[in-house]
């Protein structure tokens, strides 16, 4: 059978790749894609712990569904913000969106 650590390693790798995407990319849409990668890594962890440690409680899957809902809301609002900012400023690069900087 597949050891639990394999899932945790996969999730850790996905999380760190997503972290690089969030910190290192210039485009706001690419940053959102990095956040989606990180949320997916967290979901893998939640479901793997549910399956290996507490399969009699359904909490892990219920938690993952809440994460799905939050991810969907986050993507909808984030992308709407990006489109709105693009209309106003003609840019999707966070470095150039400096209206609220000191």
């Amino acid at each position, binding site marked *: *059978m*597949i*050891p*639990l*650590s394999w899932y945790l390693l*996969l999730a*850790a*790798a*996905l*999380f*760190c*790749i997503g*972290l*690089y995407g*969030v*910190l*290192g*990319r*210039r485009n706001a*849409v*690419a940053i959102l894609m*990095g956040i*989606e*990668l990180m949320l*997916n890594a967290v979901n*893998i962890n939640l*479901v*793997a712990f*549910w*399956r*290996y440690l507490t*399969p*009699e409680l*359904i*909490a892990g*899957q*219920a938690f*993952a*569904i*809440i994460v*799905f*809902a*939050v*991810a*969907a*809301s*986050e*993507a*909808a*609002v984030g*992308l*709407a*913000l990006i*489109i709105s900012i*693009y*209309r106003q400023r*003609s*840019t*999707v690069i966070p*470095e150039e969106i400096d209206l609220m900087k000191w």
Partner: protein
Amino acid sequence: MTVLQGVFLITALAAVISAVMVVASSRLVHAALWLVVTLGAVAVAFILLDASFLAMVQVVIYIGAIAILIIFTVMLTRRVMADSGPQANRAWWLAVFVATVMFASLLALLAQMPSWWQATPPALVASADFLVEDLGKSLVDLDRYVVPFEVASVLLLAALIGAIVLARPAEDRGKTGPE
């Protein structure tokens, strides 16, 4: 190595490679398509974990809704995207450093849990049908997760309305914005 382990290794390899392509690809449309591959691989991982309902939700919500939404946004903001120039910001080396340190510390944490290295999944006490039924009941059960579930519903509704208001053309709000 059993068949399941082989399937998992192929899935994990596909997930990691496509995730790297998501953050490394210079064309955003390509990055979004690689993201679809990653999300599909994660759905396969859910199937391997006996979470069939979550695998379906992953395909429907992530691939069917979020990835498509991202592709639409890339298309709507394409003119300035230019698909050229540096896609990584000035501090990209710092981002690589932070991500590497994070991965190393996660590995160190994992190494402190020797019982997890060889842990095998306990046999499921219930059938797969019962698991899905139990999951559905637990989300509307007053003693379990009905409150987080309803809060998530309200959050989704608020996000939907907020997204519509934000993405509406500026003219509708009586402002003059460069369209």
